[in-house]
């Protein structure tokens, strides 16, 4: 675990967003790691997640927290999925 997150999670920052790489984690850990980052305040406005599947069960939780989302890149069912999340309400 790092910062309370499941082991194997990698995070970094760019000028535009905070990134989190949860590829290789077993469900539901990708979803848990992303929500921990949002709820813990580490990502305040824009969060980009790198996943190896579309996180369908994450979307209701993002709606509940007032975050909008978009899959900006998907290279098929076995490849990397990049999900961009933006806070739209406090």
């Amino acid at each position, binding site marked *: *675990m790092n910062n*309370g*997150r*499941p*082991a194997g999670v990698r995070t970094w920052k760019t000028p535009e967003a905070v990134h989190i790489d949860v590829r290789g984690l*077993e*469900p*539901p*850990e990708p*979803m*848990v790691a992303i*929500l*921990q980052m949002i*709820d*813990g305040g580490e990502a305040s406005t824009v969060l980009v997640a790198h996943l190896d*599947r*579309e996180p*369908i*069960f994450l*979307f*209701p939780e993002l*709606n*509940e927290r007032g975050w*909008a*989302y*978009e*899959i900006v890149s*998907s290279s098929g*069912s*076995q490849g990397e999925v990049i*999900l*961009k999340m*933006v806070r*739209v309400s406090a």
Partner: protein
Amino acid sequence: MTLAATFLGGAKGRLLPASIPFRFFVSAAVFQVLAWLTLLLAGEAAIGFRGGPGPALAAVHLLTLGVLTSTAIGASVQLLPVATRRTLAAVWPIKLVFWLTVPGTAALVAAMYTGNPTAIAAAAAATVVGLVLFSGLLAHNLWRAGDLAVVAAYGWASLVALLVVAGLGVAVAVNYGTGVLPDHPSLALAHMIVGGFGFMGLLAMGFSHVLMPMFALAAAPPHRPSFVAFTLAVVGVTLAGGGAVAGSSPAITFAALIGLCATALHLRLMTNVLRSGMRKRLGLSFVLIRAAWALLPATLIVGLAALHGLAGSNGQTLFGFLLIAGWLLTFLLGVLQRILPFLASMHAGPSASGAPALMSELAALGPLKLHAACHGIAIAALVIAIAADMVWLARMGSAVGLVGALAFAWFTGEITWRVVAASRVRHSAAPPADLRG
């Protein structure tokens, strides 16, 4: 903001049409109402139930096949394809499963209630065909669940148990009319053990490894102790089922002790998940889930006591009631409280104004509070009524359970109605397919 509207390309392809899972959930809610109503009518026959056709057997199968199995099928066909990334090849087999199992169950319990052996055998055959078809769908999906090792292991074991319990069920059902089996009660006991602890119990334990971390926002339990608990559970169920068929009291005793070890380890893993999770306020659903967790070891202890004649004259009935209504039904209703609004919000999509459907707005808390209170009172009343042979208390408890089941049916119906309404609006507003990309 247009981001949310664009997300679901291929992902939604793995979400079944809402009508598929929700038809099973609505059926389960209706069967629960009928189960408590049948228990109310059964009265004395229920608290001293020893097997055989009649209202009590009908009530048992309304709960096991009607509520538990319908919910398990609805949840499995919805959740597993998403988790395993394996899209179901077609929707029609699931519809066929529904049309075999749900009307089959209704016909079966009607035949059990009236005590018609020919109708029991025919309805059991239709239901079993549906369950075998469901087993095939489950196996097809589990085949590729490589990164869900613990859940897949429980899934495979549950699937094998389902086939065994279906076979035993047919044998017992046919025997009501023919009487060819040498030891009907032993097979009926094995049917109950493999169905309750095997098929449903293992499925509940397996799904918990995904659902509890999701609910609590915690890391999944570590693999090694999870597999130890799984192995103990499977050995316990196998030994208990075999012991029941063979009429071996020592084997069943040993199996129950192994089951207690599996339970202790599983519950330790689950409580660790809750303790380490970011979400501390888990809500009403976890009142039911925690109560169910307490009732699981209680069931095994009462079963042991009944086996050795230490649980009173209705000890076997108490064991069966705790297994089906105490542990399994309470756990499943707690989980359903949580996942129905979750699934509904995924299916409902954004409103006309573009705002997403929120889980918190889809869950009506009033009916859920009424249901939880009534369910708790009903279980406690029935446990005391069975233990102390009090018919009036059994009727009172069943009546309260019926009120709770009606409240839960209201909650399920309201959510389903919102999903259906949203689906109609979306279809009527949808552009032609070639414009959707």
